[in-house]
């Protein structure tokens, strides 16, 4: 009796598919819609895209922080202006009252 390994080689030898197999595959390929090759296929292109995305994100984040800072500054200036005008009004009233009491 041949060795088990030889028997396995014999039992598991390659089998041919049906005679029209290749023709059926080619017919299916012809009928299948054309698949566009993805534009981003090279690894370096993907790296560059990832780096560009990271840079954009960082720049956007910086810009947003700058915008928030500007807004805060505007709000502080507005508050100072409002407080200044209130102080002016109060000062005018005080002067007016002082003038009246003197006369």
């Amino acid at each position, binding site marked *: 009796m041949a060795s088990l390994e030889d028997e396995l080689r014999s039992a598991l030898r390659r089998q041919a598919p049906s005679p029209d*197999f290749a023709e059926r595959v080619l017919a299916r*390929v012809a009928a299948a819609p054309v698949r566009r090759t993805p534009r981003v296929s090279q690894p370096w292109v993907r790296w560059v895209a990832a780096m560009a995305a990271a840079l954009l994100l960082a720049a956007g984040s910086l810009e947003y922080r700058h915008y928030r800072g500007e807004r805060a500054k505007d709000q502080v200036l507005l508050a100072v202006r409002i407080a200044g005008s209130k102080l002016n009004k109060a000062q005018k009233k005080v002067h007016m009252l002082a003038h009246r009491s003197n006369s």
Partner: protein
Amino acid sequence: MPRRTSSPAAGLDFASLVRQHQAMVFSIAWHLLRDRAVAEELAQDVFLSLHQHLGELESPEHVQFWLRRVTSNRALDEARRRQRRPMVSLENAPEPVAVTPQGDPLLGTALKKLVAALPGKSRAIVILRYQEDLDPAEIARVLGIPVGTVKSQLQRALALLREKLSRVAGQASGLSHGKE
């Protein structure tokens, strides 16, 4: 008329690749699934996929490696999905009947049944080893598992097949003695 697609690196046009590798792809699927129609369908799907990825493959060896890997993985997935019969371990697999102990076609049939009863990964390892004549390192690359796992599962599968075959041979000789 089918589109003629070729891969400069692979060196052959698609139709030639199909004719060259159809027996390999079909046989891996057939030995793993034991269903001719399903194996042919799966093999066709593998070649359609090859057609879509042909531009990415760099050499004839790369094409062959890609086909083995994709076919094995898809056939294993299909076997898992189908679950036509409950998974039985080799120890619990039914004995093939009426097998003569001498090397004859019936022994081959019995062996195919025993291999078909192996768990999926072990079955794929045995098929790639004895159908495709790959060494454990190549099998490990195709299936994406460690070489040590391939070696241990192969040894275990062979031991189980040997034990099962000797049991079958013993039964057959018992039957023939009973007839005398």
